[in-house]
């Protein structure tokens, strides 16, 4: 049972354009959502998060949008840079189950110069 789903395994965008990475979840008890970025042979690193009481959180070029009714969140990167090329994981947490994070399958972003 995949509670967090990233249906696009890969995405390719041109440098300077917007990258939009999508994530869907099934568990309505999730109340905290995070995006992690992973380069090859490295561990994932935290990128940005959002609480379920908000619908948007922005940090520089990165913005996360949360649509609770649709159980959908997205990560926008604008403008995209070649250094953003990595695998992006969406993760969710249910506060009633402790701090366990459930991750999606990841989307590999390629930003072409």
């Amino acid at each position: 049972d995949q509670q967090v789903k990233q249906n696009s395994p890969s995405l390719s965008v041109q440098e300077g354009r917007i990258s939009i990475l999508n994530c869907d979840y099934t568990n309505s008890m999730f109340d905290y959502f995070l995006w992690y970025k992973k380069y090859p042979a490295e561990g994932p690193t935290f990128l940005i998060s959002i609480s379920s009481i908000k619908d948007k959180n922005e940090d520089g070029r990165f913005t996360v949008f949360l649509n609770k009714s649709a159980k959908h969140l997205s990560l926008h990167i604008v403008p995209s840079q070649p250094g953003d090329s990595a695998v992006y994981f969406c993760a969710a947490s249910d506060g009633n189950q402790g701090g366990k994070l459930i991750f999606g399958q990841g989307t590999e972003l390629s930003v072409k110069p």
Partner: protein
Amino acid sequence: GAGVSQSPSNKVTEKGKDVELRCDPISGHTALYWYRQSLGQGLEFLIYFQGNSAPDKSGLPSDRFSAERTGGSVSTLTIQRTQQEDSAVYLCASSKRTGVPLGGKLFFGEGSRLTVL
């Protein structure tokens, strides 16, 4: 150290052998997690240690898998009688807090790549 440290970074073993993977979390972090990433797959939750509470073992795939966390710090993930499907990168992460918001930012190690021949 400054970050989460895992060892070994690479391990090749024969089917049926036991392996131990070690994780040193960031000092002072009360929560410790093990995940694994199989080839082409996402991050699969294995086990979660939260302070002095009983660990959440709900993600362990079989009874061949076990983990301990001694003294609230170092953790060891043990896989007995390894199978080829156990081949994956095993990632450890730690987190400073377990309070609100739960599931706070995790700091990951670089992983231990296990190959079972």
